[in-house]
């Protein structure tokens, strides 16, 4: 059951990755990275149970804390230095 969940999370990660590749706006990329971060937290949590050593929940916890900081930093940056065109960054 954990294996199925792991694979489903991997599929979600793959799709978010595709969104991060194609963009088109900077905000889409930030959104994809944010989603990727949340799914990383879940993946690490579920993987701990899959390998029957769930005591390493600390890594998931540190992502839950720090992913927020990364997103806020990116947003501050985008507000201070707006991209040349907000519609697309390519």
């Amino acid at each position: 059951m954990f294996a199925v969940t792991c694979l489903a999370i991997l599929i979600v990660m793959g799709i978010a990755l595709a969104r991060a590749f194609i963009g088109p706006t900077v905000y889409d990329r930030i959104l994809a990275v944010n989603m990727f971060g949340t799914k990383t937290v879940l993946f690490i949590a579920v993987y701990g149970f899959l390998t029957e050593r769930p005591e390493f929940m600390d890594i998931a916890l540190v992502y839950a804390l720090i992913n927020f900081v990364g997103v806020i930093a990116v947003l501050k940056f985008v507000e201070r230095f707006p991209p040349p065109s907000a519609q697309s960054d390519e």
Partner: protein
Amino acid sequence: MILDLYNYWVVIFLMMSGFYTLIASNHLIKKIVGLNIFQSSVFMLYISMGKVAGGTAPIAAEGIDTYSNPLPHVLILTAIVVGIATTSLALALVIRIKESYDTVQENEILELDRISDEETQA
């Protein structure tokens, strides 16, 4: 089995991508990103080597007798922190270059250097 070496091939691919970015890119920040990819490919190589089939994370617990190799983990753990410190040093150098040359394109920097050399000779 062909998948036995998959990790190592991915490592080589990452290493070569970083290498390519390093030598083919004209932008100094992109060069640093290439260097970072190169660096993390080495991390991946070490960690792949440390994995043992059937082993778990090297933290002793009841009822477990196969552990992965802790030595590569130690080396890479410190290497990551040292890596971010040296990357920040490189980025600081890029900022100084931008301030004195007003560009971060390698060819423009070389061009400016050539002009100033000719001026001093003349």
